[in-house]
Each structure stands twice: as C-alpha cells, then as structure tokens.
C-alpha cells in the first residue's frame, strides 16, 4: 500500500475571492505532513480540494504520478482518501454505530442490516479509544447525547472505518482532551508504520512538532515553505506564516495617548466571564479606547461579545461605568447604549429583503412617534447614509441589492442613529472590499476620538495590530495575552494565537 499524492499549483476562487492562488503539497505513504497557516490562508480549502468537496479552478492533482480528478467525496473515498471534517458530518439523531457505518452497513439476507455484526465492528473501533471515553459508551447511543470531544472521536472513527491510505485531520485535536490527543497520536504513529499517510492540520505548534515529519506553510493561498520539521524552529515557522507586504495603511489615533487613556474612567469591566466556550475572562476597557480581540476563530470571541450584549446566558460579573449589570436580553443592552455588529451580517445583522431605510431605522423607530414621522426618518437615514458614504440607488431599495461592503455599512449605520456609547464588533470587515475597509477604519478611529468605547474582534491580524490600542488574544476560552504598545506586533499576536508561551505578556 504505497502511494503518493501531489497537488500542484492549485487555484481556487469563491466568486471574486481567491482562496488559493498557488498551493502545492506532496505527501507519501508512511508520512505525516503538517499543513500550517494563519486564519484564512487556505488550509481548509486545500483539504476540501483533496477531498472532492470543492473542485479546483486551476492546477492539478497527481496520484502516483497520474493525473486524477476528485469531483466528489465519493470519488475521494474510492481513491482511499478520508477526511475528518472540522464541521462534523454526523447525524445527531442516529446512533454511533449507524453513523460510523452509514452506507456501508453489513447486511444479512433480505437486505436487513446485521445489527450484531454492526455493533461488534463498532465496538472494535471504539476500543481504539478505550480508557479515554466514558465507560457506558455503547454503539447504540445517539450521537446527540455525546459531548463535543466524543463526537469528534466518532468522526475520526468514521473516517478511518473505510480503511483509507490518506487521512486528513482538519483541526481534529481542537476539541479533544490531553489523553484523547495522546491516544490519537499513538494511532497516527501506528498508521504511519502501516504505510498510511496523514495530513495534519492544527494550530497547536506543540502538537505539530511532536507528530509531524514534514511541514508545508500556506500564506494567502500560496505555499511559501516546505521542508522537514526537524530543520525548522517554532519561531521560523511563525515568520513564514506572516506576510511582509502590507496593503492597507493604518492611522492609529491614540498610540501616543496611552497615559491619557489611563486618566479616563473605566467604561466596561468584565470579571471571570464564563460561557460554554469561555473559561474565565477578565479585562477592563476605558472610555474612548479601541480594544481589539484577537486569536484564532472560535476561541470564544463570539461568546464574549454576545454575553456582553445580553444575547446568551453567562456566569461572571460585568460592570458598565462601575455599575454591575447582567443583561438577559439584547434590548437591555441597547437601552444602556451598547451596539453590536454581529458576525454573520446576512443572518443576524440585516433584514436582507427589506429596504435600506427600514434596516437603518430598525433600532430607533420608537423615536419617530405614532403615526411615524416618515419624512424625518428619511432625512435621518439619508444623513447616516451620507456619513457612511453609502453607495445605493435609493433608500427604498432592498439591502440585498447592495454590495457586501455597503451592506455592512448599513449594519453599523443602524446603530449610529442611536448614538451608542459602546460598540461591539464581530469581525466587521469579513468579506468586505479594500476601499470599504479603509472607510471603516476611518470611521472606527473617529468614533474612538469622539470618546466611544469599542471592542473589536477581527480575524485579520493586520487590522488588529494597525488599528487597536490594545489587543486581547483569546485561546481556548481564556485571554492568552494582552498586547499593547511595543509588544503589539504581528509576530506576538500570532504566537499568542497559537498558544505559544512566549506571547509577550508585557
């Protein structure tokens, strides 16, 4: 069972966005390749290309030197390629056994599923993780009753149940505990000894150095470095992941005014905040401060913003201007002058099929009396539109007719009319064009100059470094590092995101 897969000059576009521009990858039997890159560098895309979930727009895939086209997950399966997806492919209502063997159930006569054999084969697979699972782990337990780590393990078992030669582990260790990771690594070494190949995608540097033989670094959709893991250090890897050229120029308002901000009063104080993904987060934000929230995706940033906004239940203390508050509903937060720009603007931020006017005035209709003073409302909306440089045919057009950047302006514009004191931003520049981004930065700096408090999560590290006074880096639900002044560099930010210990705690 010796094979080799090689991806050469792979290009993949999603609409106008180039996810991969020149990705290269080589993997052979008996080898463990670590695929490394920052947020949005194209790691998941290349694994989707190899697994047939998306088709490539350019370049080629070679299996044992022969050109192959992997057009669907089924084709990949036939070629012996199996993926552990980051977003699990399990059916919650079905049992563990049914999930693992779906479409490959052992059958008796009359096409009846052989339950006994099915459960037996499942037990065999489950025994691979013996000792790291609850004792009452039975094949007929529904997947919905499992914890996230257990679901992840079932997903891994499902992937290896087809006996592939190449296994792609996309962030498979993210929700596992230490013992489970340990067991997975033992298995990975066994697979390697049997001649299987593994592509290991992880943000945990320590794991990469423990398990991988070779590495391949992606940056902005391009492969920028490959080699043996023993020839490189953690620091050099991080250097490879960081981009040199900077596209957008940032103007920082208050880099010089650190002492000044100290004299201002504390606006927001969070103490030991706990939710499902946050495990005790404490910090303070002064009035007029622009504080960034960084880290890899899904480390609790969303929960942090939503719990301050009263959108999800949480434990812990939140104080605004020294006054203890515990919002149970976003309307309480809005009354206290807090605004949220949510992460998924089409779903959470906008009434997509309704007009620009309605969207802009949605949080403030009550200011316009009964019956509504429509003319005044239109004037106000037009003023906000002008201030944001909103490109639209008319206020009465549906938001769905706007470009991504302009739609995002509407999300922030609907709050401007209420003049909130505090803005919570969840990755507001995601999928926004460069010009609009620049306008956004200007708007944020202006708001901050006006004395508004801003908490700004971004998946774009350049933004955080260029724009913020301070950046809190979240990792596994805690603040891994607080970067400011001289320690606020991209190197430190990425290092802290990856959980590397020297993340400059100044």
């Amino acid at each position, binding site marked *: 069972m010796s094979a080799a897969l090689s991806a050469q000059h792979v290009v993949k576009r999603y609409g106008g966005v180039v996810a991969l521009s020149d990705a290269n990858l080589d993997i052979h039997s008996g080898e463990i390749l670590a695929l490394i890159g920052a947020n949005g560098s194209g790691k998941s895309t290349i694994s989707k290309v190899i697994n047939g*979930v998306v088709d490539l727009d350019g370049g080629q895939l070679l299996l044992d030197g022969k050109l192959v086209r992997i057009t669907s*997950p*089924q084709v990949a*399966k036939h070629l012996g390629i199996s993926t552990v*997806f980051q977003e*699990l*492919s*399990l*059916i*919650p*209502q*079905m049992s563990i056994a*049914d999930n693992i063997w*779906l*479409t490959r*159930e052992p*059958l008796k006569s*009359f*096409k*009846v*599923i052989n*339950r006994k054999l099915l459960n037996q084969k499942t037990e065999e697979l489950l025994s691979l993780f013996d000792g790291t699972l609850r004792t009452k782990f039975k094949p*007929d*337990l*529904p997947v*919905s*009753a499992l914890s996230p780590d257990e679901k992840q393990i079932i997903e891994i078992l*499902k992937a290896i149940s087809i006996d592939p030669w190449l296994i792609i582990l996309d962030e498979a260790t993210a929700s596992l505990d230490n013992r489970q990771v340990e067991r997975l690594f033992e298995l990975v070494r066994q697979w390697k000894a049997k001649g299987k190949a593994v592509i290991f995608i992880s943000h945990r540097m320590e794991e990469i150095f423990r398990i991988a033989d070779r590495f391949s670094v992606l940056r902005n959709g391009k492969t920028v470095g490959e080699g043996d893991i023993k020839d490189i250090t953690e620091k050099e890897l991080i250097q490879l992941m960081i981009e040199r050229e900077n596209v957008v120029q940032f103007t920082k308002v208050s880099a010089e005014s650190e002492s000044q901000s100290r004299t201002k009063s504390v606006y927001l104080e969070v103490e030991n905040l706990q939710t499902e993904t946050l495990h005790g987060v404490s910090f303070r934000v002064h009035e007029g401060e622009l504080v960034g929230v960084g880290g890899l995706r899904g480390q609790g940033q969303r929960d942090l913003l939503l719990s301050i906004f009263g959108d999800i239940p949480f434990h812990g203390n939140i104080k605004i201007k020294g006054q203890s508050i515990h919002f149970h509903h976003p309307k309480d937060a809005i009354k206290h002058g807090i605004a949220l720009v949510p992460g998924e603007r089409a779903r959470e931020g906008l009434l997509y099929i309704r007009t620009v006017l309605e969207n802009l005035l949605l949080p403030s209709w009550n200011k316009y009396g009964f019956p509504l003073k429509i003319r005044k409302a239109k004037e106000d909306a037009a003023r906000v539109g002008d201030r944001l440089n909103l490109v639209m045919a008319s206020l009465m057009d549906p938001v769905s007719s706007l470009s991504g950047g302009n739609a995002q302006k509407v999300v922030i514009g609907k709050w401007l009319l209420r003049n909130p004191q505090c803005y919570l931003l969840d990755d507001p520049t995601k999928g926004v064009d460069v010009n609009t981004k620049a306008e956004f930065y200007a708007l944020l700096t202006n708001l901050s100059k006006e004395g508004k408090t801003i908490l700004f999560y971004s998946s774009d590290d350049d933004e955080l470094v260029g724009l913020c006074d301070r950046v809190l880096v979240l990792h596994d639900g805690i603040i891994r590092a607080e970067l400011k002044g001289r320690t606020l560099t991209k190197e430190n930010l990425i290092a802290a995101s990856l959980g590397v210990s020297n993340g400059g705690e100044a």
Partner: protein
Amino acid sequence: MRKTSWETLTTKYPALFSTTLLIVALLINLYLQPNMFARETLNSNMRVFLPLVLLAVGQAFVILGGGIDISVGGIVSIVNTILAVYVGLNGSIEKMWIYMIVSLFVGALCGAINGFFIAILRLQPIITTYATSFLYVGLALFILPNPGGGIPQSIAEFYRTTTPLGIPLAFYIIAILLVIWRYIRSTQFGSYLYAVGGKAEAAYETAVPVTWIHFSTYVISGLMSAMAGIAITMLSGSGNAEIGSPMTLSAITAVVIGGTALSGGVGGVTGPIMGALTLGIIQNIISFSHINTWWETFVKATIIVIALAAPGLINLFGRRKS
C-alpha cells in the same frame, strides 16, 4: 442531565409518549363508554379509525425523511371518486378489485408527482404539496362534481363487519403495517431514511442517495393515501370529492402526537399509528361526554394542543431542574 436522559429515552423509544397518551385516552373513553371493548363497539370504532391510521403511516415516512405532504387528503378524494364512479353501486367484485389496483397506481403516481417537484426540482415541500393538493381535489371534483355514486353494499358490509377470530379487521391491517415497518426499519433503506431526515447534508457527504430517498417517501405516502381512500370508501359506501381534505391535518397531527418530529429524523411509524388512534378516541370521548356541539371543536382542539405541547413542557421542566 435530565434533559439528555429524556432526549435519549425519546430517541430510543419514540413511541413512549404516544403510548402514555393513548392509554390515558383509552381509560377516559372506557369510563364514559363501559362497553367499549365489546366486539361490536370495538369493531365499529376501529373501522372508523383505520383510514386515518393508514394516512398517518404514509405521512410518517415523509416527515421522517424531513419533508411534509399536505396533498394526502386530495389523493384520498381522487381514489374515493374513482371507486364511487367507476365501480358504482351495482358493480361486481371483479370491478372493485380492478379499480382498487388502479387506485393504488393513481396514488403512487400522485406521490411521484410530489416527489419529482420536491426531490428532483428541489422545491419547498409545504408549498408544493399545498399546490398539488388543489390539483388532486380539482381532479376529484372533475370525476365526481356532486356527492353520489358508491360501491356495492356487499363490499361495504364486508369491510364493516369482518372480524376474523372475533378481532376487528383493522387490527390485522395494523399488525401487517407494523411487521412491514419493523422490516423496513431494519434495512439499509430504513437507515437512510433517518439519515436524510436527520441531516441531509451530512448524509450526502457520506454518499447516501438523498434525492432517491426523498422521492420514495412521497411515493409511499401516495400509496398509503390511496389505501386510506379505499378504506374510507368502503366505510362510507359512497363518493364525495370533499371527503379527504379535512383528513390531511389530522394525519399530520397524528404523526406529531406520535412523537415523530416535524424536523425529521426522529420517531417512527408505531407512534403515528397510536397518534391516529388517540385522535379517534378523543373524538369518541367528546361525543360521549355530551359536550354542547358549540364547544366540540374547541374542546377537541384544546386536547390536541395540550397533547402536542406536553413533550416540550416536559423538556422545559427537565431543564429547570438541572
């Protein structure tokens, strides 16, 4: 933790809640109608319940697969009018057999039309079957514009009075349905049905033939509707193009009371059968408790709403306690 255990219980035994409900309804009915288990009374009840049971079974397949079929009443009407017009009050047994087979074909065809739009053209199930329901009722009205016609008295009598070994005919049919369901449940098709209804995308990624499964559930529903149409024609002995329409929502209610989630992938067929029986018994209870007819609909609806809300309430209290 309590919530999980209730969830686990209901996933493992989807008929748990509907059984409880059925027993409670039975006890109340028994109190109001002490001779309920006498052969005659039981049979006269069961023959009335059977059409809805058949309809609920078909609906259960569609809902398990993640869809919904609100054209079933229309199919019942078509079958009813076909039999009433083409067999006729003076028709022969042979004619009845032939048109029963025609009816099954028509039912399957109607289901295939629904399946084509929903599974292959990917249209919304609720809108599509709402639209086709008018198509089917319209066709029934075309076949039989005014109530009338019918099937021979002898055939209707056979349906109404046959009690082999002293047990009503309906029980035999329900038993056959349960055996067939147990078989289907244990095949790969059964597994696919739950997978598609549970999370169609994940099923697709795992190479389950999603389109084909969706399509087949509508054909099964069409077939079961045709059987319900045959049963209700034998029960009433006459034809009426409006006979099926009110049954659609009852069938969906029966499925939901039977613990089969409208979101798909949870439940089975046993629960919906009991749900249909429960609905029938509720109707019985109302007529025996001498409620003013003005209040009848209101009382019936209240009982159904409570029955529907109960699992949610149990979950809510479970959450509170943990």
